[in-house]
């Protein structure tokens, strides 16, 4: 319905436009076309007002921009008797709409009426003022204006576009203008067929949703060649958009993969070294998130000047708190259970229940509000896909943590000992490495990294006592899928699972996608029981 009405008014406007240009061309001396156009504002009828707007555009009046601004703001007034149209500025001063000169005093004293505007008029004004911005000295603005015309496809703007094109020097602006012109010509039933076909190709090259809309709204009765060209354009744009969608899914998948990486990487270290699945790992993440919450609260109360940096300060704080809890658990529970991985699993599950309930008792079962600093708000657009800054930050942060850990394991003395114990615990012990100390440090490190993950997750998830539980199974699967004791395996595992999850979601739905993924991982583990990148250690499988 809307499009039909649109088209009808477009057609009417077109006729008026043609009439006006015709009139103006043959009898410049009889009447100024701008006078005619402005007269439309004084009849107090919406149809006439709309025609007047298009008339003003067609004459490219120097005061046009001011007229439209005034009309949009309800400050365009007229004198019903003399039929003069005046612009009232914000301060109430009156100028003549035709010339921009100050209004004669006698006019100002008369009872003036405001030119009324409804939504249709406002839309027309918007499109029309776009035409005037085409003459803006700033090329950036000119491009924006051309894009606006491309979107509105208002035939009234055609003349303005062509005027602008004739003088345009800037290449990018020229291209935008040509695209806008093509969009109008494409929908212009009386334009030459060959021009419209060429226009369809040009519009298709733009390749976004607006171009798709332009190609889809051909006026009825368009020639077959134009229709074919438009259909080809639609097909090519849809192809491109599906690529862009896939790209979007992949970026979302990478963001999810980074979250999984953060959650799983600490687990990969403790599991790799001690062969122990720490069921309380998720609770370390939760503790990190609560540390973030507390840090923010403390800084907000005592040092409000550095509010923006509280998230940065929370990172070492979360590492220390979660790491300390980890060492405590290792010293009091886990060290008594070495060589009994299944019992460790049960004991750490018990620890996780206690930690959850402890946090619930202290902070209550409800979600705690962790604020996002300003520098993480907003989004960035990449290849037509908009990405939230906090997701981008998590990807970068996860990779940062990953490479820091990699360096730690490859370049430090602790890392050397950790790797030695991972590969062959008995041999390492024989060489004089204090394996219990390495165990405690590794466990503290893994827990600390989980705490850091909690800082990141506090930005995208609810900080509640159950935060850890929702990540623990995914984290396990990442570690087992990637291969134990191999950080690269964890990276690949996390990214694979994250991207696969997001790619499955559009056609299988979130829950079914997750189920498919779980089943796929279960089957994968049958095939490669030691994961994607199995560590080649000198141990015998039990």
């Amino acid at each position, binding site marked *: 319905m809307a499009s039909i009405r649109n088209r009808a008014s477009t057609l009417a406007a077109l006729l008026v436009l043609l009439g006006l240009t015709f009139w103006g061309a043959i009898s410049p001396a009889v009447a100024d076309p701008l006078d005619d156009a402005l007269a439309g504002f004084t009849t107090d009828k919406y149809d006439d007002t709309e025609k007047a707007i298009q008339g003003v555009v067609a004459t490219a009046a120097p005061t046009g921009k001011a007229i439209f601004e005034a009309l949009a703001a309800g400050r365009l007034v007229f004198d019903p008797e003399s039929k003069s149209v005046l612009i009232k500025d914000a301060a109430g001063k009156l100028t003549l709409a035709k010339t921009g000169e100050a209004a004669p005093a006698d006019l100002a004293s008369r009872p003036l009426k405001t030119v009324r505007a409804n939504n249709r008029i406002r839309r027309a004004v918007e499109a029309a003022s776009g035409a005037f911005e085409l003459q803006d000295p700033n090329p950036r603005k000119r491009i924006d204006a051309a894009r606006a015309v491309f979107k509105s496809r208002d035939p009234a703007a055609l003349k303005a576009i062509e005027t602008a094109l004739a003088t345009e020097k800037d290449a990018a602006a020229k291209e935008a203008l040509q695209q806008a012109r093509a969009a109008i010509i494409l929908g212009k039933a009386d334009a030459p067929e060959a021009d419209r076909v060429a226009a369809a190709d040009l519009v298709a090259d733009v390749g976004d949703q607006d171009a798709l809309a332009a190609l889809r709204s051909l006026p009825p009765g368009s020639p077959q060649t134009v229709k074919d060209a438009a259909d080809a354009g639609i097909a090519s744009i849809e192809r491109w958009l599906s690529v862009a969608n896939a790209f979007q899914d992949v970026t979302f998948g990478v963001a999810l993969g980074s979250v999984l990486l953060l959650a799983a990487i600490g687990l990969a270290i403790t599991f790799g070294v001690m*062969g*122990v*699945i720490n069921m309380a790992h998720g609770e370390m993440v939760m503790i990190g998130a609560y540390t973030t919450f507390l840090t923010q609260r403390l800084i907000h109360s005592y040092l409000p000047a550095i509010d923006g940096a509280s998230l940065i300060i929370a990172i070492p704080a979360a590492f220390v708190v979660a790491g300390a809890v980890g060492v405590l658990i290792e010293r009091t*529970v886990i060290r*008594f*259970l070495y*060589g*009994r*991985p*299944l*019992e*460790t*699993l*049960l*004991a750490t*599950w*018990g*620890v*996780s*229940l*206690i930690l*959850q*309930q*402890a946090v*619930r*008792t202290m902070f209550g079962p409800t979600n705690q509000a962790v604020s996002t600093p300003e520098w993480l708000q907003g989004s960035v657009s990449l290849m037509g896909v908009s990405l939230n800054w906090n997701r981008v930050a998590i990807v970068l942060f996860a990779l940062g943590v990953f490479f820091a850990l990699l360096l730690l394991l490859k370049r430090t003395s602790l890392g050397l000992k950790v790797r030695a114990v991972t590969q*062959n*615990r*008995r041999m390492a012990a024989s060489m004089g490495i204090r394996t219990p100390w390495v165990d405690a440090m590794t466990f503290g490190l893994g827990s600390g990294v989980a705490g850091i993950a909690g800082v990141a997750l506090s930005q995208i998830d609810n900080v509640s006592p159950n935060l850890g*539980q929702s990540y623990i*199974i995914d984290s*396990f*699967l990442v570690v*087992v899928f990637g291969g134990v004791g191999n950080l690269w395996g964890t990276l690949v595992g996390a990214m694979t699972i994250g991207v696969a999850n997001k790619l499955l979601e559009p056609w299988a739905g979130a*829950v*079914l996608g*997750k*189920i498919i993924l*779980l*089943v796929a*991982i*279960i*089957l994968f*583990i*049958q*095939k490669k*029981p*030691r994961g994607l990148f199995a560590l080649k*250690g000198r*141990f*015998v*499988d*039990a």
Partner: protein
Amino acid sequence: MSRYRFLDTAGLIFLAVVLAMAVLIPASNLLLPPDNPLHVPDYLVPLLGKYLAFAMLALALDLVWGYCGILSLGHGAFFALGGYAMGMYLMRQIGPRGVYGNPILPDFMVFLNYKDLPWFWLGFDHFWFAAVMVIAVPGLLAFGFGWLAFRSRVTGVYLSIITQALTFALMLAFFRNDMGFGGNNGLTDFKDILGFPVQAQGTRAALFALTALALCGAYLISRWVVTSKLGKVVVAVRDAESRTRFIGYRVENYKLVVFTLSAMLAGVAGALYVPQVGIINPSEFAPANSIEAVIWVAVGGRGTLVGAALGAFLVNAGKTWFTGVLPEFWLFALGALFVLTTLLMPKGIVGAVSDLLGLRRKSELPSAPPAAPAPPPAAAPAE
């Protein structure tokens, strides 16, 4: 070692106690007047019946974990599948008495605009069919899963994690409305079982007695398995899997038999559980439930069968008491139970008591691996 005795002292005591419960509790509930001090109140009968169903699940879990060394963190899935099979039968028995009064479709299907009964609901109006499914569905799932997992030698914590992933995946699946199992509301509002009203006290007492008898049956079957030659090989697999394989046993087949049998027992336990609590929903698949079942076994005594049942009974009684009196402290208590049992009482209550009494005779089975002879040195770090 000579042949194990089929029934030892602990087993005889266990059977005697459960059978006595099967007779005395329904009798006291139905026959004694409510003001008699020995009268078992109405609410207690299904509650105790629930514990007995849990005890049966613990028994099944002990069979795989205690005797075969497979720590399944997904036994709740088999329990819930058995429960769903029974729940489907009970749903079909409602007939036109539902809120919407549809004679064929259960209420939730009418609500979700189903036109016909989905194919996998066919047959569930017959009790015998549901009873077969109670055993067959968990059994087939366990068989398929175990066939894949044991053949590719997925062991230890890896196996534990994928069993957990299995039950997690099933939970997500059953939460979906379009799976045709009632979505997150599950199946409830049951009316009749075999023509008897589910809510009636007589039916409840009968269900209790039946559960107790089934527990005895499950104990006898498990005991028969672990004292047979098969059971000996299974224990060998638990203590030294590689060694057993090198001797020439097809380890994966032994594991598969025990795992499948255990899943079937868990399914029956679930089927007995559902009519007594009156509802089955996807949260029964929650991984936390399966892990909780493991702690029942650990508390009672892994590898003792009797201990597993005892542990289930005690932990659940504790849970009921705590959640009534000190609800915040239940998770602390449960967590502490996990930690302290694994640290201080690796053999559980039964193991500790028999150690204390010096009752460990040759005729008894060795319990958990720590008590077994030291494993070969190379096996320790990698397991």
